[in-house]
């Protein structure tokens, strides 16, 4: 999957991802204001398949699930950061937004065109002939992400269980 890098710094918090004053407006409105404090043109220019790259402690703040949901709603393919706040990390995976840790993000620049390979755990910088290693996700979380998050993952699992039971 090919996309463009949107680069952010450290401590991007849940209020920047899902601003409190728009919480009552639903996910469309929240997504339209996602990250506007750090970058006013983010929501209007990000396209499905693009990748958010950030520093440490991404998603710090409240436990609101909408912080991850807003990025997913905009079509962001993954967030790659040096580290994540714990509750955001859980919420993102459970909502089907890939979150990946990379220890070395040197040379990644804003606007770079990248290929993201979740299976291989690699981010390839197309124009620089360089590959960033991503910390591998365990298989169970990979499956959950591939299914679109916890609820669709469980739906699939229960459907398979029912099929097995009725098949026997």
């Amino acid at each position, binding site marked *: 999957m090919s996309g463009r890098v949107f680069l952010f710094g450290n401590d991007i918090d849940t209020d920047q991802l899902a601003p409190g004053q728009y919480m009552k407006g639903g996910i469309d409105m929240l997504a339209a204001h996602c990250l506007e404090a750090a970058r006013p043109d983010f929501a209007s220019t990000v396209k499905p398949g693009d990748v958010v790259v950030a520093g440490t402690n991404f998603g710090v703040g409240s436990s609101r699930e909408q912080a991850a949901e807003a990025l997913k709603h905009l079509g962001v393919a993954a967030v790659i950061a040096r580290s994540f706040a714990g509750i955001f990390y859980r919420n993102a995976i459970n909502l089907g937004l890939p979150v990946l840790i990379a220890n070395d993000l040197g040379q990644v620049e804003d606007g770079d065109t990248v290929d993201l390979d979740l299976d291989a755990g690699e981010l390839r910088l197309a124009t620089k002939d360089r590959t960033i290693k991503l910390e591998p996700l365990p298989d169970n979380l990979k499956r959950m992400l591939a299914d679109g998050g916890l*609820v669709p993952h469980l739906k699939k699992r229960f459907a398979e269980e029912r099929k097995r039971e009725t098949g026997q």
Partner: protein
Amino acid sequence: MMASTLARKIIARAAGRKSVTPGEVVTAKVDLAMIHDSGGPRRVEPILNDLGVGLWDREKVVLISDHFVPGDTDEGARILELTRQWAKNRKVAFHDGEGICHVVLPERGHLKPGMFVVGGDSHSPTGGAFGAYMFGIGATEMAGVLATGEIWIKVPGTILIEWQNRLADGVTAKDIMLALCGKLGMDGGRYQAVEYTGKAIAALSMQERMTLSNMAAELGAQAGLIAPDATTAAFLRDTGQNAADWSDLHTDSGAELLAHHVFDAATLSPQVAAPHSPANSGPVEDAPETPVDVAYIGACTGAKYEDLRRAAAILRGRKVASGVDLQVAPSSRQDQDRAEAEGIMKVFEDAGAKILPNACGICAGYGTNRLGEDVTCISSTARNFKGRMGAASSKVWLGSPLTVAASAVAGKIADPRDFLSDAGEAS
């Protein structure tokens, strides 16, 4: 056997593994799931319906109503009704109006050392005081747990927090936590496991330990553990449980730690945290002259039996300053009954306090007595974020129940140690 931490031992057992390594993701079986009226039935039932399944094991689910109790708004009354109906339909253990979930759960004998427990509330780390690995999750994840009995967890490292020596008179677990929030910051826990240890911790009662574990949430930790000991065993005996072999439920010497912080309890002053963060903390004697309008003794971290007893020792024979509204919301009915029997509730009434229901109340932002515009409040609760307890212009200071009681009498933020000498001791 490699040296391991308490957190890793509990998670390994729940995951059916011999051992686990920090950073790896495992799927663990949940021993108990606690939900309340706010994040519980009204949020999880639609997801369970969507999934087309029921509860994985109704005997491992405990429902407690505390957020919308006493149902003094139309919305609150409606949600409580929905909660009660759900408890009936789903046939789960239900504690209705008996107090705040984090206090009621252990008080009614649901927690045991070594358990792996999830709660639908951010202060769920409270269960760590009993040597259980307990943490808070959102409604979507809770629905997943209720449907399957399982949850994934990234195995945490352990940050050991050691308090040497003994706390001085008038200094409490709340003061320890406010000091830690200031020293380590609200992300100092890094979503890892915090474990409290040392002589000062060993000397604390279970209710005081619950305050430490509860506020691991304010440190940004996933869990706040204390290894079980004789104090734990005595509490469990009192709640009708049998002691078991907990000899392995501790962090081995030589186990790999993320950090080991050491502090001196003997030199700790009562702490207050200025608006709008628990991390804005410092010794009460350094606080600026601050008149208060409301003094609030409430919440899971500030109005348990022992909190009430020690606050009452300051209020006995004294009156609340004119113009100050002292509100007392005992954490649970059982704690209030005990305080009543010992004459403690009478001390509050005689001092001029208003007694509120056994519920989360304004700490969770609910109910009809939220703080008004520009009100200054000193509170025994866990967090003082802007607008949480009322108007955005209200200013909430945090302190121990003793500091709140002293401030109510003085009419301004006051050092509880100044009120102890003639009252004997309040520890």
